[in-house]
């Protein structure tokens, strides 16, 4: 089977997944959830009002039609209007995507580069005290809730010391930078723990392979082995790990955006949660799920490109 056939086949397999995701969303929001008409109108609504609103929201359609609407919106991106702002949701998403990415993209790239560098150093000193300290420190960093970092960072470094902007955002290339510096730093602190642990495991998996022993026997230096051989071979799990995180960048950093008032997708989602805005939550769930599905296809394809040993079956 050649690569194109493989890609086509892999794309074909995402259809049942999309149908399933739509089914889960449908069950949560259209079957189990309390009647949205009652939520929106409150306790004192008349029967006629409720009936009118239900009609308007499309809740009187048969169940299968409501389900099909969800499936359709996964492809057309027509999510309807927000209940609170009355805006087209797709327009809100378009507006929020750029601010989100100005925060998440630099944060993601920086944290990945830093984590890989640290894990290389740490696996160079594997088993020594530097390694043990680093692992313990990672676990320690992971043991504090993200909320505590955000609250403390914003209060201490931005409010008390005045080193950074407390909150706010300006669009345009150089203008946004001062507003995202602190959120980016907090993101890096949040992700360094799990990332270093993961990359270290990947490196150590490779370090005990036979080819490393051969390289050592040939008399290659530890440094050459680490950078030329181990890092190259570790690329497959690293790429997988990196690519599969990209869809979550689209969702933005929910908490960071809301604390630092960055008008991105994370903030939109959180406002949706606060205001019981079903269409917004639904749209964001569908959007991120679609991104996840597509990027998992990309990961699989990359996998076969990077490593020809992976059989196309």
């Amino acid at each position, binding site marked *: 089977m050649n690569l194109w056939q493989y890609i086509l086949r892999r794309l074909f397999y995402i259809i049942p*997944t999309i149908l*399933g995701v739509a089914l889960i969303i449908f069950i949560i*929001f259209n079957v189990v959830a309390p009647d949205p008409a009652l939520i929106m109108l409150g306790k004192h609504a008349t029967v006629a009002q409720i009936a009118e609103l239900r009609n308007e929201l499309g809740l009187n359609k048969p169940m299968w039609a409501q389900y099909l609407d969800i499936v359709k919106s996964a492809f057309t991106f027509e999510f309807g209007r927000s209940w609170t702002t009355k805006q087209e949701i797709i327009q809100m998403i378009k507006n929020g995507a750029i601010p989100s990415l100005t925060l998440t993209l630099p944060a993601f790239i920086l944290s990945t580069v830093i984590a890989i560098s640290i894990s290389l150093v740490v696996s160079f000193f594997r088993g020594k005290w530097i390694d043990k300290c680093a692992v313990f420190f990672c676990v320690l960093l992971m*043991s504090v*809730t993200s*909320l505590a970092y955000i609250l*403390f960072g914003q209060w201490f470094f931005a409010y008390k010391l005045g080193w950074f902007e407390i909150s706010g955002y300006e669009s345009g290339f150089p203008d946004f930078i001062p507003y995202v510096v602190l959120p980016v730093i907090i993101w890096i602190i949040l992700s360094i723990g799990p990332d270093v642990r993961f990359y270290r495991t990947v490196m150590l998996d490779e370090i005990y392979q036979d080819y490393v022993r051969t390289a050592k026997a040939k008399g290659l230096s530890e440094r050459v082995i680490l950078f030329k051989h181990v890092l190259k071979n570790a690329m497959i799990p690293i790429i997988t790990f990196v690519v599969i995180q990209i869809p979550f960048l689209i969702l933005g950093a929910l908490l960071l955006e809301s604390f630092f008032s960055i008008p991105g997708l994370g903030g939109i989602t959180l406002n949706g949660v606060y205001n019981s805005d079903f269409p917004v939550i639904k749209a964001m769930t569908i959007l*991120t*799920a679609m991104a*996840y599905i597509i990027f998992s296809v990309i990961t699989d394809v990359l996998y076969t490109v990077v490593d020809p040993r992976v059989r196309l079956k």
Partner: protein
Amino acid sequence: MSQSNIQSVEGVEIEETKLKNSKSLWDHALENIFRDKMAVASLFIVGFYALISVLSATGIIAADWAVEVGPSYSAPGADYFFGTDIFGRSVFTKMIKGTEVAMSVGLVAAIISVCIGVVLGSIAGYFGGKIDELIVWFYTCFQSIPTIMLLVALSFVLGRGLVSMYVALGLTSWVNLCRLIRGEVMRHKNRDYVQAASALGGGHSRKLIKHIFPNVSHLVIINFSLMFQTAIKTEVILSYLGLGVQGRPSWGTMIDDAKLELARGVWWQLGAATLAMMIVVLSLNILGDALRDALDPKLKGK
């Protein structure tokens, strides 16, 4: 081929020593864990937290958390150990009371997700075929939805409160264990000992529960501590989103309160809850790593 040789050699040896000195995986694991000082300390800390939460749940300690003990927002000191909150309640007592919510959320959510993961994973792995495809499809769909969105959606739909938090956290954390169990059961189901059990007339459920499950149960133990601490950490986020417990203190609501207090320089509520949480989550992390090293020798030292 070589593997079966080794097994038969081992079999002979075991017969010769009449199982006198043989140790099971669990004996070895316990021995390893008790040799690791950090793991023992962590075990004690987790036990201590569990004791505190039981004592507070039965009302023996911290039953008076709602009582006003001093002026609003007094700083930590000799009079008020960790200071007081806006209503003049002792932050220390609230922190103790919060242990109850955190430990129960961790425990119940982990039990729910272990149940779902083990049942679906072993059914998929054991029966294979169409059932396997169905379960794999199901968890692939589940996994495609980001956990935080699923969590928000679920707690939204289930309403506020402790029970819906248990369910939401339990329903969102089983996929990983399910995949691991499925893979291990698949590896085990064609082994000789399972075939022997079937030759003796054992049915599916007997083979699965009596013979295969004990051989994959170490995965449950390892994942349990992971799920436990994830649930404790997630409780904080849900509380911040206004989807947490109401009417009694939890570390999440304490940290949530701190977002308004910090501007007035009131840091002790955030500090107390973060400290209490950090110690138990760190212990669970260390314990989880020690358990993994002890029970899964393949992963030793990673």
